[in-house]
């Protein structure tokens, strides 16, 4: 730690550190080929917004810390530095895997000798930092243990510039402006722990009045003192600045350091944390919430945007055909040509793009040098530099098309696809040749669909796959309902059974029927993994704003339908084989006891539905029940619960008989289990 006398002098140069890397994989495959901070946001590289923000704050010296694609960042920074009065240095460290590593590196290099501003390379903000800095310095004068001031922006929990799934909860003391507790909030709260905010009782000893805030956007703009990097070095296991560092400091009795906050409300501040945020922030920029950082202020030297009615920004050199329609919220970069009858709305189009005739582009982000030929449709997707869409290509929502991908004519790219031209084996530096996947990009195309690295980052913590999904592009629309869905799912959907068909309008239900049937069919035919099939089905569930009950109602019969009672062993269609192969998929749709009982009702009904004759139906039902029990899809208690419920005795004759089929099993279960029924449910556990 440097001597403290130096810290306090106010004549020092204001320094800032930009972490150019985000240490996550949300923009892959695009970020495999370029640095995250150089991605264009409304045709301006992300990091330019950060530079601009820091310049306004009066920063004189910036250290840009980069890891991956450092050469590209370096080149960009060099270019940018020429036209800026700030001193900008780049620090390259290839080994860094996290914010913690970067901070330790910073400490080792001893470049910082005063309080500094720590930001990530993807912050878009128009706030001024002078007040925060003043506050921070005053606090430091009074109390040396105040090591950090976080800048937090007020916004309601559903605000669109709030990253879904990256929420955070702060417990604050308004009188001392101290942050007392931090907790990240997931979008899908799968465990009891996720659903609760928990903090130590001892906080109340020192702070009798606290404020719990769930309406703050944390865009990770921090004023740090020089101790911060040093603390990272001392605690070498700290990785994330919030989950590890802030949490660690706040819960540590030994360090005796405090972290403070500064709340801002009338300014814009957000981070491009995910593709979903990329979408939201782009729209904010177009809608001028970020003023003065808007396209027509021409942040880049060569830009010359004009601002037109309907939030349309257009370079002078754009060539629009006479009949093309540019609706509202559109940015079009230099030298782009748009042919006859094309319709553009809510989109950003980069430089030198060629858009053919009859093209429909909605909600899409098309970067530089992209060619889109006639009759294409692009929805809610990102298309990176140099990509080519041949004629009649449809890009469904949520796609990321990486650099130079060519999608052949007459191809439909399904929703949420990620296409790249990089060869499969990325670890291997040898030029593995790309094998194009004609199923995805068409016969004449170039590219393959990109598979995310399988759970490599989750060795210590189980990441709910749903939480990865939510911050993706185009997921934002249904997200609100989703969250409530997730909360109510297991408990309430079962109760609503029976009446739901009247409540639901017919169309979405039918739509879901069809989609699930198709997905299952594809899964059966192509022999998908259970995990993949489950993921697809879950995606459907979210997209259709449905619940697990609805899914079970469709999937269980779907799987059973695949069984051929007359098939021979080895054909893959006998009861046993089908269940062994696809049973786990049913398991994925069943989570708790209510679900299990519900699943049994559905099974009962489905078996009876498929085979009206009891002798046939029981051949299906008995092994299925047995299987459910054996692999613990349903537990003893649920089977008993189902058996003894009134509902299982009702229904058609076959259904009732099926219940009797289960009688021997029930007897067996009842004998073997000693009833313990003291599990009275705690009222606090029941969510609404």
């Amino acid at each position: 730690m440097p001597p403290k006398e130096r810290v306090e002098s106010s004549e020092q140069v204001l320094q800032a550190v930009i972490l150019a890397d985000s240490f996550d994989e949300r923009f892959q495959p695009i970020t495999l080929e370029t640095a995250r901070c150089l991605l264009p946001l409304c045709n301006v590289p992300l990091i330019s917004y950060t530079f601009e923000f820091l310049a306004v704050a009066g920063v004189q010296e910036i250290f840009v810390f980069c890891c991956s694609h450092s050469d590209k960042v370096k080149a960009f920074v060099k270019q940018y530095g020429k036209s800026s009065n700030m001193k900008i240095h780049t620090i390259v460290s290839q080994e860094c895997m996290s914010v913690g590593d970067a901070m330790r590196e910073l400490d080792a290099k001893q470049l910082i000798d005063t309080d500094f501003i720590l930001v990530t390379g993807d912050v878009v903000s128009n706030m001024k930092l002078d007040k925060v800095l003043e506050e921070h310095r005053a606090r430091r004068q009074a109390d040396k243990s105040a090591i950090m001031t976080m800048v937090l922006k007020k916004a309601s929990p559903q605000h669109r510039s709030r990253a879904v799934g990256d929420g955070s909860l702060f417990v604050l003391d308004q009188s001392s402006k101290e942050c007392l507790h931090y907790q990240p909030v997931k979008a899908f709260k799968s465990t009891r722990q996720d659903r609760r905010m928990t903090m130590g009782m001892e906080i109340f000893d020192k702070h009798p009045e606290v404020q719990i805030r769930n309406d703050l956007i944390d865009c990770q703009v921090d004023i740090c003192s020089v101790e911060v990097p040093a603390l990272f070095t001392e605690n070498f296991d700290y990785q994330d600045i919030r989950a590890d560092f802030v949490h660690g400091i706040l819960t540590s009795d030994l360090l005796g350091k405090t972290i403070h906050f500064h709340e801002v409300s009338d300014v814009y501040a957000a981070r491009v944390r995910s593709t979903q945020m990329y979408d939201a922030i782009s729209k904010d920029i177009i809608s001028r919430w970020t003023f003065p950082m808007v396209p027509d202020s021409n942040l880049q030297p060569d830009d010359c945007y004009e601002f037109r009615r309907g939030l349309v920004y257009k370079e002078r050199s754009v060539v629009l055909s006479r009949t093309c329609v540019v609706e509202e919220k559109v940015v079009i970069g230099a030298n782009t040509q748009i042919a006859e009858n094309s319709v553009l709305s809510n989109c950003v189009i980069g430089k030198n793009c060629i858009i053919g005739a009859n093209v429909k582009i909605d909600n899409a982000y098309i970067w530089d040098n992209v060619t889109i030929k006639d009759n294409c449709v692009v929805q809610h997707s990102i298309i990176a530099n140099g990509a080519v869409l041949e004629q009649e290509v449809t890009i469904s929502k949520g796609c990321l098309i990486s650099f130079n991908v060519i999608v052949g004519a007459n191809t439909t790219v399904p929703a949420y696809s990620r296409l790249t031209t990089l060869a499969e084996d990325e670890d291997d530096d040898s030029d593995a040749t790309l094998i194009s996947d004609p199923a995805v990009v068409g016969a004449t195309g170039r590219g393959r669909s990109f598979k995310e690295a399988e759970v490599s980052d989750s060795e210590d913590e189980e990441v709910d796959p749903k939480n990865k999904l939510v911050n993706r592009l185009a997921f934002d629309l249904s997200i609100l309902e989703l969250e409530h869905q997730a909360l109510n799912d297991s408990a309430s959907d079962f109760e609503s059974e029976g009446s739901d068909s009247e409540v639901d309008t017919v169309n979405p239900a039918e739509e879901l029927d069809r989609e699930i049937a198709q997905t299952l069919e594809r899964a059966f035919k192509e022999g998908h993994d259970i995990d993949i099939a489950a993921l697809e089905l879950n995606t459907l569930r979210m997209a259709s704003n449905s619940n697990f009950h609805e899914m079970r109602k469709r999937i269980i019969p779907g799987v059973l339908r695949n069984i051929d009672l007359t098939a021979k062993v080895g054909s893959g269609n006998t009861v046993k084989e089908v269940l062994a192969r696809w049973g786990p998929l049913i398991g994925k749709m069943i989570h708790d006891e209510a679900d299990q009982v519900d699943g049994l009702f559905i099974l009962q009904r489905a078996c009876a539905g498929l085979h009206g004759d009891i002798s046939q139906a029981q051949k299906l039902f008995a092994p299925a029940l047995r299987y459910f029990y054996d692999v613990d899809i349903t537990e003893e208690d649920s089977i008993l619960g189902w058996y003894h419920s009134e509902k299982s005795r009702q229904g058609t004759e076959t259904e009732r008989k099926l219940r009797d089929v289960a009688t021997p099993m029930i007897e067996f279960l009842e004998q073997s289990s000693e009833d313990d029924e003291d599990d009275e449910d705690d009222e606090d556990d029941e969510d609404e």
Partner: protein
Amino acid sequence: MSYRKRVPEFQAVIMAGYGNGLYPLTEENNMPKALLPVVNQPMISYQLAWLESSGVTDVIVVSLTSGSKKLGHYLDRVYEGQLHISMEVVDDNTGTADALAAIKDKINTDFIVISCDLLTALIPHQLLDMHRSEDPTVTALFFEPLKGEGGASGSSKVKEVTQYVGIDGSNSQLIYLNNSDDMDSDEFSLRLSLLEKHPVMNVSRLLQDAHLYVFKRWVIDLIAEVSNKRTMASIKEHVLPLLVKSQHQRVLADREGVTKAVEAAIAANPGTQKLALSLSTTQPPENEEASAGEWKSPVTCKAFVLPKEVYCARGNTIPNYFEINRYYTKITDKDRNPGATSQVQTQVGADCLIGDDTRIGERSSVKKSTIGSHVTIGKNVKIVNSIVMDHAIIEDNVRIEGCIICNGSKVCEKSTLKDCEVGGGFRVEKETTARNEQLVDFQEQ
């Protein structure tokens, strides 16, 4: 011209409890809590005055059997205000909620419940207006107790249970209530779904329930209903937490019959809102939450947090009772020394109050104390920081500091008492020296 019978907006219920925290002052031989003097006026007179200034006309005083005679006498004969007061007597050991259930049939409107030990400078309409405009199920008053001046505060120290109160920072909704003793000792935990609905939540452990509530009429039906099933003793500990939880927990609200009670109330009295809307040209407000398919709780609880500069205290413990007396003695505009029967060479401090017909002997001094009426104080007596109630006799050369001397008791000469409570009619023998003691007649109950 015809006069219609005026329907009161609120009825008020004063809960005149026993005052466990005030032993031995509230023993049978002294007086019930409601009648304990604060600057020589019974405590209950303060709530009555408060209610009168709020515009309430009908008051029901619920008293326990013990003490009901004395209280009844006061209300009938002594009380001079304008309120129409009726008294209901319930058995000893009846909780506040049970007491409400017992007087169920007498309540026809929304009602105010106030404890007989609450003294506040709050202007009533501030609280009532919140209830009127926000139309919650219950509005409860919370205050931050002042730090006592410490020291001389009697012998019985009742430790108050710390209460954690969570209030929505944007609309004062009361969303969380918990007592420290029902919590896991070292963790404070909340459901995130609660924080999604109420993104700004202020949690305080300083705030205390003032035992002043404004309830909707139907709550009393609910209390009666639930108390049939199980004990629902106290408003603070049972009713209020149930209502607070019912705001968020559908299962609970349904199970405890909260939902049913509301529906019944609405069915019984459809109100004029719907009619007004149907006649109005304004668009009816969109029911956003219902349209989202979300469950909307029929209950809302509001907390009125008293501004710090407004005085509020509860005389429910001896230290608090002391503080209240001290405070009101300071601010009272009564004639501080009406009898003026003191001799030369006696000193009576400016922060004292002496009742009528009280005699103070030569060379005595009284400081920071409240002396009742008809008290006889001998020669060379020193009284500091104490409360002496009516008809007490204090003989010569007595030193009293930090004591409460109850009605009709006698302190014989040359005694020295510090931080003691002397029960009603008790005789302190001469030359007694006591410290931190409760001097009471032992009574076989």
